[in-house]
């Protein structure tokens, strides 16, 4: 998945946000990065990339870049 594809999926599918986001965007600045966002991201990681994302990795992630790297 390219970075742009990831950002589009995050914006439209995972977060459902109007906010402009980049890989540098801090997760703490995204209102929709909440429990629903986390659960949806985990489901997206599995469906789109076949990746199993661990809780520790999610909890430690600070930016969208950190989440993107979990899918590589």
């Amino acid at each position: 998945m390219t970075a742009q594809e990831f950002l589009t999926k995050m914006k439209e599918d995972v977060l459902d946000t109007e906010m402009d986001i980049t890989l540098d965007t801090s997760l703490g600045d995204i209102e929709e990065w909440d429990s629903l966002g986390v659960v949806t991201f985990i489901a997206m990681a599995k469906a789109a990339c076949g990746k199993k994302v661990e809780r520790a990795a999610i909890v430690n992630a600070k930016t969208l870049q950190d989440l993107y790297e979990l899918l590589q």
Partner: protein
Amino acid sequence: MICEEMLEGRYVVLKSCTIDDAEFTLAIRQNPKFTSFLPKIEQTLEQQKEWIRQQREKAGDYFFVVWDKKGNRIGTVGLCEIAKGQYESNRLTMLGDSFEATEAVLLLFQFGFKILNLDHIGSFIFADNKRAIRFNKMFGGIISEPYPNTNNEVKNSYGRMIVRCKFLRENFPLIEKKITISLYS
């Protein structure tokens, strides 16, 4: 009312509130993170202890303290019978991470739908609490249009805009499956 058994998940444990939890349960309701979106409670520690004593005796009123696996209290969650056969989820306050918060509510709903055999569970949310509305939608909550709290459905918040949320037992298995896949993948 006391649930004798602990409700245990992978990340959290729900235990019926005791007098020993009075300080924590009072403090968390006065935490600025929650005071905007929960009805205010203004009482002393002794009053909170007395409230807990009465709550433990009250039929149909389940109040849990959420503990993490390190032995820390990290939140509260409740299920109350507000009218015969009608239960409401409430008192949700969580300091933990998303996994802990999600699992705490999952355990509560499993208790309500599978142990108490409820057909539906309701709740009220302040209309401007977007995070809580999103959280409840994740559990299949059916959200009403916003309306003013003029019937005091939410205490100490007369006139404030609220939404009613309803969870149906028939929808729960699918929701439970979806959430457990994400929580425990």
